[in-house]
């Protein structure tokens, strides 16, 4: 039955997220932006995250009894993402935890892999991170084009290549590296490997300088004859028949796009509230032009939120959401850029000083139209289904 309600429990969790956002995420994000550097590994901010029960896994353990972070519906996760990103999107990416590859490990990993790689996140003794190594200098949205190679060597694998823009890579306990057995064979030849911190050949970590979202590290690194045991192949060889290897990555992208859209909605809402606050303080709300622009952005925020939630709801219902996921991201990212642009135009020359929240949001939000497939790639994905646009 059609329902747009947020149930009281979820509402309470959102209220809690808002409180943490105000007290923790927003100040940490502003500080990182001022310092122009990621939040350092030893920062007490991360200890407080653990104290609040964050930084764990939603995996329930091999006995199925443990769960540090209860698994919520996709819709609720999107609402939470929106609320967190409202306060600071960069900081939520910096948060400790098994991060992006967690779902892949839960859905595809062997029991041994789950225990080894997610086990430490059940009751983390310290802030721990993991990350997914997909993007390469020559392969962004076109994940099928990756060039990092995996070569069978006795009972193990040898990895060679370079990755870039990988979140939290230098601080991760392990990286799930996407590699190909043969770059000429496309998606079907791709595999994912656990590469643990300190593995010889894994190195040249370089934290990139970014325009925004400075609170988390985006890192490039190289893999030079990195040898990993056969047990580090995600899911084992049997999992990789046909094109399943590539689908590992695609599955992440499908889950990720509405998430990015929710982030964009949160950031846009942040810019909107700040714009209204500024306009009220400066007696601008009586001007038709100002009010009309605020109305237009509010409307776009509202619709982008609903499109994202629809994609999430379809995922909860285990129905295909490829079109909706792409639509949500294409729409929300564009809208959020407009929201921050409007905000800067409202605050005027003050925004040029470089220390205004809306100016930060303007820089931060651009990434939402790029990560997990650019807006153009999203349109290509939709158009393939809608009108059979050839690949």
């Amino acid at each position, binding site marked *: *039955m*059609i*329902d*747009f*309600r*947020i*149930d*009281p429990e*979820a*509402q309470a969790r*959102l*209220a809690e997220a808002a409180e943490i956002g105000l007290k923790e995420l927003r100040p940490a994000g502003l500080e990182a932006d001022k310092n122009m550097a990621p939040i350092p590994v030893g920062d007490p901010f991360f200890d407080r995250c653990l104290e609040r029960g964050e930084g764990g896994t939603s995996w329930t353990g091999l006995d199925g009894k443990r769960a540090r972070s209860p698994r919520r*519906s996709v*819709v*609720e996760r999107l*609402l939470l993402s*929106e*609320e967190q990103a409202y306060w600071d999107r960069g900081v939520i990416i910096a948060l400790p935890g098994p991060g992006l590859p967690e779902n892949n490990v839960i859905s595809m990993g062997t029991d041994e892999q789950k225990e080894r790689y997610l086990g430490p996140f059940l009751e983390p003794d310290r802030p721990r991170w993991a990350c997914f190594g997909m993007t390469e200098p020559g392969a962004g949205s076109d994940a099928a084009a990756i060039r990092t190679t995996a070569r069978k060597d006795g009972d193990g694998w040898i990895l060679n290549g370079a990755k870039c823009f990988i979140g939290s890579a230098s601080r991760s306990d392990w990286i799930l590296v996407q590699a190909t057995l043969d770059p000429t064979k496309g998606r079907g030849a791709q595999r994912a490997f656990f590469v643990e911190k300190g593995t010889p050949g894994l190195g040249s970590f370089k934290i990139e300088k970014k325009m925004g979202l400075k609170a988390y590290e985006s890192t490039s690194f190289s893999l030079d004859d990195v040898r990993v045991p056969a047990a580090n192949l995600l899911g084992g060889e049997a999992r990789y028949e046909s094109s399943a290897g590539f689908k590992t990555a695609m599955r992440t992208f499908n889950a990720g796009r509405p998430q990015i859209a929710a982030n964009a909605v949160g950031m846009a*809402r942040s810019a*909107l*509230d700040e714009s*209204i606050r500024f*306009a*009220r303080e400066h007696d601008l*709300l009586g001007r038709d032009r100002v*009010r*009309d622009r*605020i*109305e*237009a952005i*509010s*409307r776009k*925020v*509202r*619709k*982008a*939120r*609903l*499109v994202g*939630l*629809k994609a*999430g*709801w379809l995922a909860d*219902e285990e129905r295909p959401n490829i079109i*909706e996921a792409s*639509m949500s991201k*294409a*729409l929300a990212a564009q809208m959020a850029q407009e929201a921050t642009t409007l905000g800067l135009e409202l605050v005027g020359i003050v925004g040029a000083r470089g220390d205004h929240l809306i100016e930060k949001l303007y820089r931060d939000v651009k990434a939402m139209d790029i990560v997990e497939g650019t807006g*153009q790639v999203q*349109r*290509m994905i*939709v*158009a393939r289904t*809608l*009108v*059979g*646009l*050839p690949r």
Partner: protein
Amino acid sequence: MFDLEPDDELALVLETARRLAREELVPPMRTHEADRAISPALASSWEEVGLSTLDVPIELDGAGMGCLARVFVNEALAEGDVGAAIALDPYGTALVALLEVGGLEAARTLREATGDGARRALFVDARDALVSEDDAGLTLDVPWVAADEAVALVLLDENGVCLVTEGLAFDSVRGAGIRAAGGGRLRLDGAPVAGRWENAEGAGRARARARLHTASLLLGVLSASCTFSANYAQERQAFGRPIAHHQALAFLITDMRIALDAARLVVHEAAWRVDQRLPCETEAASAFAEVIEVGRTIGPNGVQILGGHGFMADYPVEKHMREARALSLLHGGFDAAIEDAGQALIAQERPLGLGQEGAL
């Protein structure tokens, strides 16, 4: 918690509406337009279907399915032919406007005046009319209504509604579109007011329902335009491939579809709020503005995709373009909608905060 699945009853009604639109409304679309009326056979067969009383309360012998069901069905029917959809609906928003402002008794008055829906009633927002009143009665001039005749008028203003059942005069006008429902300039010249109900809050909700009603009809027209032009673009060849496979058009079609789907959700959410008795005026105004804005893009681009063919009356997209624009001018149009929504928004500290009133 968030759920977009219509319940079984609505799903069934919707399936019926879509089938009827496809089979009964689309084929005679141009004939109805030329005749400025639907065929008597269609009109008489429609009474048995029961779609007209979908949002009429059970107490008044309706289905009592509410605003959300109405917007779903409106879209389905308007996707077939919006003129016929309006012609086949005896009340439009007239009955629910009376209901919101004056309650069941007021609505019952209209049921009686129309012979339980045997004849049409009109809803007019005072923002679309020149209105004055003196001892002689109500004088009014509405440049266009999608009707040639009606037995009752429900006129909405900021304070409430009044019902007029005598003295309705129509001068036939060509109409920019929606001709299957007729088209006239409506005048009253000192007409007696049969009833008046004042309730500003109810008037706000009545306007919300009226906007959502029109917005949902608009959605149907735009959906038809999107579907037709996208299908055409996959068949029509230019420069050695379907025109839809040129990225400029592929992206245009994609953006049209994204805009339509998004606007539909916004309308549904606002209609859901109506049924939940939650504040809905801002959301409805915003939803109406959104659909109008989307229509500005989809209407003309539906024609554009067909090129020269789109300009010709041989294809329905030119009709969609005209009719979407005409619908967009109702209730004070876009400017009134963004004014209402904007004023409400700036009065709030955090207008789109999550979880207010337990809803999005």
